């Protein structure tokens, strides 16, 4: 192997193996990948602004006269509002319940050493790994039998079951990142464990709690399978969209407009809470 001349590579820290590609080539690849990620979303928005003749033109039209008719039609029909309201109710209830139950658990797992701590953590995470059908089939039977089918309570219970593991797991990571000294000081002053949790740890953990709440809300908002099976009348956004397509196969403009409307809250979240989302979506593997 020849000895390379270090003088040729005056690179700062953190920029080494990227030298395999010239900067312009690297940039090209990165932006091509961005284009690939963005294109379906762009296409959806452009479809939602097209007249029917433009939407189904044999040669797809990249330039066209944008119209708002699709949005007007969708909003006037009123169905979307119902889906929105259902999603909002279920996602909010899910988030509140999952946090009330999950945050204390996460705190104890992060702060207290006791036998079985790691096993408990693994058990919680393993419920996230469970194939949904393994839960869905008994849920379905139970709901059919008990009348929980088609109720907000039923949907919320199912969504909490799906999301609790994520809430605990992420929240545990947030608590672990906080310094324990504050609580130790509180103990010195004679605080009980519960007081240390309520009055010292919780206020400091608020940003983490907010981040986890957003994620929990988002996951509930996006959930499809359980909602599809456990409810016929209470349609949330994804299920509403799915049934909408059932009878509107070719009305691409309206379908797209509905999709864009339903994505709006999600996109708002992504723009505002990007960092928390990265951490949450990677299950805390990145900090």
């Amino acid at each position: 192997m020849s000895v390379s001349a270090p003088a040729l590579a005056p690179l700062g820290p953190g920029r080494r193996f990227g030298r395999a590609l010239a900067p312009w080539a690297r940039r090209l690849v990165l932006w091509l990948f961005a284009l690939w990620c963005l294109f379906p979303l762009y296409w959806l928005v452009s479809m939602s602004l097209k007249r029917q003749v433009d939407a189904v033109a044999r040669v797809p039209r990249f330039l066209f006269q944008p119209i708002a008719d699709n949005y007007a039609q969708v909003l006037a029909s009123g169905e979307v509002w119902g889906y929105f309201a259902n999603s909002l109710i279920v996602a909010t209830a899910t988030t509140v319940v999952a946090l009330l139950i999950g945050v204390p658990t996460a705190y104890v797992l992060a702060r207290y050493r006791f036998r079985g701590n790691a096993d408990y953590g693994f058990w919680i995470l393993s419920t996230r790994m469970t194939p949904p059908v393994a839960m869905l089939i008994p849920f379905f039977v139970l709901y059919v039998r008990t009348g929980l089918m088609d109720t907000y309570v039923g949907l919320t219970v199912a969504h909490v079951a799906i999301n609790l593991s994520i809430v605990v797991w992420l929240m545990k990571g947030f608590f672990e990142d906080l310094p324990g000294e504050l609580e130790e000081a509180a103990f010195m002053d004679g605080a009980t464990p519960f007081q240390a949790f309520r009055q010292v740890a919780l206020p400091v953990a608020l940003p983490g709690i907010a981040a986890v709440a957003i994620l929990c809300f988002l996951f509930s908002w996006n959930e499809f399978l359980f909602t599809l099976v456990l409810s016929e009348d209470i349609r949330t956004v994804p299920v509403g969209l799915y049934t909408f397509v059932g009878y509107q196969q070719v009305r691409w403009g309206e379908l797209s407009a509905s999709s864009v409307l339903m994505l709006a809250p999600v996109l708002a979240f992504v723009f505002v809470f990007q960092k928390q989302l990265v951490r949450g979506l990677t299950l805390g593997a990145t900090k």
Partner: protein
Amino acid sequence: MTSAARERRRFILLMLAPATVLLAGLTIVPFLASVAFSLTDYNLTAPGETDFSGLGNYLALFSSAEFWNAARVTAVFTILAVTLQLVLGVGIAALLHHETRGVPLLRLVYLLPMAITPVAAVFTFRMMFNPSLGVLNYLVRLFGLPPQDWLGTPGMALASLIAVDTWQWAPFILLIAAGGLAAIDEEPLEAAKMDGAGPVRLFFDHTLPMLFPFLAVAITFRAIDAFKTFDIIFVLTNGGPGIATRTLNLLAYKQGIEFLAMGYAAALAIVMLLVTIVASQTFLRRARLFKPKAQL
């Protein structure tokens, strides 16, 4: 036991109680119910005529062609999708690590596929995949290639599903790999560079091994999720054409929710669960995710 120790113990139990009760009720009880169902011929169309059937459902499952077909489709889908996402994710993360301009914007865009409502994204793909009116065949013709029936032929349908899954989840590996790259100790790299190692060699000999703990977690999570993919397949092909893209998950859905054959579907779900448990125990325990950092 001192009173402080008693109080500490009571606190721990109290804090864990709600989640324990709820998760036990919502996961262990359903699991036990699934096991019980799977040993009977329970069918919701005739719930009164349920009989114990022992391992009958499992035997029927393992001797049916539809199970092995679904197992094969699931394996192909999972392995190809995760491999593709791994190569793409790590490659892009390595490039992004050296980029200096526009990184926040790029990261934002890369985040979109995994955050947006899957069903909405999948509908967009359905429009794009349309053989006569979709934008994909237009682009294909533009490059002088023959138009494809993206979701209508068995091999192509599976490939399309893998492409959509990769679109959605390659960013997952990318983000974890990027986090790993940022956390890597650069000193050994420095030394190797001094010894004259080229950038490609540096990456494979030094960076990749150090990145491995992060990738092990990413691959495990991704593989387990790919194994139980539902939304994409259900909305795009619903297992078709024929049974070409019917995974184990879709088969269980069809048997349980559409045909109401709860016993049979539960047996299938239990088999899936066992596969998942073995996979996650094997990889996650080793990935050292579970070192408690307890302080108090």
